[in-house]
């Protein structure tokens, strides 16, 4: 880069000035405060912008704050940078030689910075490498790293437009784009591919697991089918067993039916032999027999009764005695007799009472008397009526008897009462006497009555009469018995006749064709009845056979049984040797259970089959999945190979770049050492530069030690730094645009000798790198001119 012209509309103390620069060495002369540093700063600001020092260079008079710099690159292109520092980024315009606005081409981020873009040197590096501003020759240690980096960038090899950094960036960008970085989560192809591989591998595992499950399901189903087949076989065996039992049962039943038919035929034949009594009313034989037996019993009873009656007949003597007794003792009935007996007793009592009464009367008379008369009358009445009552009783005038008896009783009661009263109170004695008299009288009367009756009846006494009466009774009983026997015999005979008639009637109805005695007829009837009963028995037998048949057949049809038997035989079923209900029930229960198990197994098989069909129908094909897995593995392998290749490329380029940087430092040392030897007259000829930090050290001739520059004199140190800057500027030129070298009064601490030695070096360097030397020393200015510098006087601002 060559600076051609700087027009300062206003920058610091400079205003309305235009400075033209020559190729090679330029010397700007001016006294202090003339604006030398301002001019240097204006050049830097034109290339890089005012940055943080914008206010430092604002014109104090408030005038325009702007510059216009025209520069030319090594390829011949010319650019004009116009900056109005009051408008910041909006106040920058860059034009090419044709007047085209090329500001976007020189933008570095948001900043228009021709220095960054065309020089490829950042501001810090430019200021510290290409500028010595205000006597600050020493390179700012804090900027060393950026300078080193900038130099490294400038020296990273290849044609000018090829930069290892750019290559590394492209490689790294490719790595980011096609591989990904460990930290990136979105655009990370390798991670994405590995994620896809993991997912697809899971799909493959799932498909294999599903296939294994289906295989297990099939095995389970096969096991259930085997079990079902075993159960079916057992069921078939049980069914055969049931059929064998059934066959045995059928055989037995059909045998029973055969026997039944034989028995039926026999019974029917037997029945036929009783056809003659088919209509015989056997139901009436009981009545006939009963009638017969009744008749016979009646006949026997009548005969017996007649015999008894015959036996019970009275003898003539007894008959006579009976008549006599009836005449005498029989003339009184029991009541009369009892009355008579009572009268007799009464008489006896009366006699006793009379005696007693007499005694009492005597006593009472002795005690007193009263009411004897009445008492006596009552007594007499009582006794009288008592006798009358008896008489009435004898005469069977019962009502009178009762009346009289009642009167007598009443009278006697009155007597007793009256007598009692009288006798008790007043006429006890009389009563007693009367009682005695009456008693006596009663006794006499009674005795007389009794005696009359007895006499009439021919009894000597009541006892006699009683004996006669007893005899009469006995005879009466005998006679009665005879009569009863006779009557009974008659009655029985009558019954016999009735029974005979009944029998005859029945026999005439039941066995009309039979003659003979009743017994004979009855026997015939009985015989016929028996035959009829036998016939009925045969009928019952036939009916029983029918029941048996029903029991044998139950609800089955015989032909169906035969057909079933034949069917079982045709199927090879051999009837069981033994069978029975219990055995059949056991087999049936087994069949039911096995059938249930078989159906359960069928259900299980159906379920498993359905599950299997569903699973097999939805099972994923493994081949495409595994193919994807292998393809993803291949892709991952390719990406990893690309990653390795990119890594190797990046590492190789970085390493070689570092080596180049290392070489650059050696070259910097070599160039600077040569120049330093020339400048110091051989005193200092060896320096060391750290390529990363640019820290410089020099070998001290007195000790041979390599020491930091701070250990040297200020002048020597400045010389070293100036030469380092010049060397760096040359080395920048190797890769990029040569930056202009701006040296603002760098020789402040130099002696004239060293200045003289250095100027040629600077002038020589200026052939390649335009150098602008700022000085306030007229001698230095003249010396510079002598080595070919173009002089610019700040006072005139014109190239001289």
């Amino acid at each position, binding site marked *: 880069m060559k600076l051609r012209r700087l027009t300062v509309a206003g920058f610091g103390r400079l205003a309305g000035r235009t400075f033209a620069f020559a190729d090679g060495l330029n010397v700007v002369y001016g006294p202090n405060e003339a604006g030398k540093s301002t001019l240097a700063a204006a050049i830097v600001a034109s290339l890089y912008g005012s940055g943080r020092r914008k206010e430092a260079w604002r014109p104090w008079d408030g005038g325009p704050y702007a510059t216009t710099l025209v520069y030319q690159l090594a390829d011949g292109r010319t650019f004009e940078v116009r900056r109005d520092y009051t408008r910041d980024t909006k106040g920058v315009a860059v034009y090419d030689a044709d007047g085209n606005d090329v500001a976007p081409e020189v933008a570095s981020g948001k900043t228009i910075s021709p220095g960054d873009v065309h020089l490829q040197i950042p501001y810090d590096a430019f200021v510290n490498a290409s500028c010595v501003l205000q006597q600050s020759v020493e390179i700012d240690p804090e900027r060393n790293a950026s300078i080193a980096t900038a130099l490294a960038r400038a020296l990273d090899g*290849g044609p000018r437009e*090829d930069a*290892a950094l*750019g*290559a590394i960036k492209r490689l790294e960008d*490719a790595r980011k784009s*096609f591989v990904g970085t460990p930290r990136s989560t979105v655009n990370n192809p390798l991670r994405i591919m590995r994620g896809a591989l993991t997912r697809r591998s899971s799909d493959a595992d799932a498909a294999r697991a599903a296939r294994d499950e289906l295989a297990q399901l099939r*095995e389970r189903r096969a096991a259930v089918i085997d079990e079902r087949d075993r159960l079916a076989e057992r069921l078939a065996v049980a069914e055969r067993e049931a059929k064998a039992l059934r066959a045995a049962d059928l055989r037995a039943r059909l045998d029973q039916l055969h026997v039944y038919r034989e028995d039926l035929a026999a019974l029917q034949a037997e029945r036929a032999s009783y056809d003659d009594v088919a209509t015989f009313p056997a139901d009436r034989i009981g009545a006939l027999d009963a009638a017969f037996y009744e008749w016979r019993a009646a006949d026997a009873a009548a005969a017996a009764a007649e015999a008894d009656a015959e036996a019970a007949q009275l003898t003539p003597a007894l008959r006579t005695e009976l008549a006599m007794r009836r005449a005498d003792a029989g003339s009184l009935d029991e009541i009369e007799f009892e009355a008579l007996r009572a009268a007799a007793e009464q008489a006896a009592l009366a006699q006793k009472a009379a005696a007693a009464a007499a005694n009492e009367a005597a006593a009472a008379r002795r005690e007193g008397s009263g009411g004897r008369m009445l008492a006596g009358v009552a007594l007499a009445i009582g006794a009288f009526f008592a006798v009358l009552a008896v008489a009435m009783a004898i005469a069977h005038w019962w009502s009178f008897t009762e009346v009289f008896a009642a009167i007598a009783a009443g009278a006697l009661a009155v007597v007793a009462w009256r007598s009692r009263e009288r006798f008790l109170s007043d006429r006890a004695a009389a009563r007693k006497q009367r009682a005695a008299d009456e008693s006596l009288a009663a006794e006499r009367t009674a005795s007389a009555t009794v005696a009359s009756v007895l006499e009439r009846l021919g009894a000597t006494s009541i006892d006699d009469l009683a004996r006669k009466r007893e005899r009469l009774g006995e005879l009466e009983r005998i006679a009665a018995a005879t009569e009863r026997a006779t009557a009974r015999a008659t009655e029985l005979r009558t019954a016999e006749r009735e029974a005979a008639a009944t029998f005859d009637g029945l026999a005439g109805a039941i066995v009309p064709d039979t003659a003979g005695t009743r017994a004979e007829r009855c026997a015939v009837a009985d015989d016929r009845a028996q035959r009829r009963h036998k016939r009925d028995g045969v009928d019952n037998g036939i009916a029983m056979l029918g029941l048996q048949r029903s029991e044998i057949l139950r609800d089955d049809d015989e032909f169906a049984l035969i057909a079933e038997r034949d069917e079982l035989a045709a199927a090879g079923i051999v009837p069981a040797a033994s069978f029975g209900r219990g055995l059949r029930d056991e087999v049936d229960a087994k069949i039911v259970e096995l059938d249930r198990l078989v159906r359960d197994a069928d259900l299980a098989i159906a379920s498993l089959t359905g599950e299997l069909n569903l699973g097999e129908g939805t099972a994923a094909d493994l081949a495409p999945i595994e193919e994807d897995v292998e393809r993803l593995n291949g892709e991952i392998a390719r990406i990893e190979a690309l990653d390795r290749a990119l890594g190797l490329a990046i590492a*190789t380029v970085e390493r070689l770049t570092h080596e180049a940087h290392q070489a650059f430092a050696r070259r910097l040392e070599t160039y600077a050492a040569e120049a330093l030897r020339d400048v110091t007259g051989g005193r200092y000829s060896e320096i060391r530069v750290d390529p990363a930090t640019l820290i410089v050290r020099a070998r001290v001739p007195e000790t041979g030690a390599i020491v930091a520059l701070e250990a040297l004199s200020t002048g020597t140190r400045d010389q070293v730094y100036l030469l380092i800057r010049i060397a760096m500027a040359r080395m920048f030129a190797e890769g990029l645009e040569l930056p202009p070298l701006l040296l603002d009064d760098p020789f402040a601490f130099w002696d004239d000798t060293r200045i003289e030695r250095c100027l040629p070096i600077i002038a020589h360097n200026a052939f390649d790198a335009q150098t602008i030397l700022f000085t306030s020393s007229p001698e230095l200015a003249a010396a510079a001119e002598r080595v070919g510098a173009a002089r610019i006087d700040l006072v005139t601002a014109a190239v001289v």
Partner: protein
Amino acid sequence: MATTIVHAADVHLETVFPDVRGGSARRAALAGAFERIVDLALERNADVLTIGGDLYESERAGPATARFLFAAFARFGKPVFIAPGNHDPFVARSLYARDDLPPNVHVFADASWSAVPLAADVTLYGFGHTPAEPGRPFADATFERSGARIALFHGSDEERCPPGKRSTAPFTAAEIRASGATFALTGHYHGGSIVSDERGPVFAYPGSPEPVKFGERGDHGALVVRVGADGIVAVESVPIARTRLIDAAISLDDAGDESSVLAACERALGAYGRDDYVRATLTGTVQPGTRVERALLVERYGAALGALEVIDRSTVADYARIAHESNVRGRAVAELLGAARLGDEDARRALALVVTAFDGGDITP
């Protein structure tokens, strides 16, 4: 009366094809080939259909595979005899052990010979693979039945083993003769061949009915074997395959731009069609800045093919010249070129990346 046998092997249903796209279409082609084998057996009125192993890939076979095979077996209707191979060994969960295997299918489930009469004077001896390596199948084998004795198995002909092929159940022609077998139907090698001696055919591979891997040589089809009443065996190889696996090398020497690259590819691939599955390897040296984009080539030319896989082995021109540069690029190229020439694949890839990066071009994988 003659007995006609149609023999096939190495169908490899459910194979995965990671080295070429169009895996689903390839698998469909394998299934279609097996259908054509059954069609052949029906057309030729074959008495039996034999399978010499590797009918399917056991790791991936599933219900759909079973449905397909069982339907094909049932469609043939006549006896099918299968000798399982190392890819479809007989195990409890193999398709061959399923309870819905059609009744006309017989599987030789043991790694020992068992005999099945095919006709009055023809006996088939079968030997099947189980997961364990079966050893030499004809060691101590003795076939003594009268008439023709046909052996069916899956094994490796030791004397004609293709390079890189894994050996299983090895045998020799002499062992077959010594066993008394009249003829052997086998499988394992994907290239079909018929091996004979002075007495006639000894054994035969039908080859896989469709190519399975790149580089397979030999016939791809089935065998029609006729065993005459006199016991003489006649073998006919019938092509079945309709697809091809093609390895194509496409030279890009001196191609200076993308259109040159496309033209070279078009010339090389123009001869192939929908039944061809092509693995194209780009070789040669292209000019700097020439874009070789695999994805573009696949997109442009793959549609006319069954599938197209592109492997880029081309190099950018003049690495040697760049290596002489004294700058970082030159030194980087020199270093990586040296390593690449020694076989370092990472260095070879890095070489192209470095040059492209320094050229400012787009780096593509």
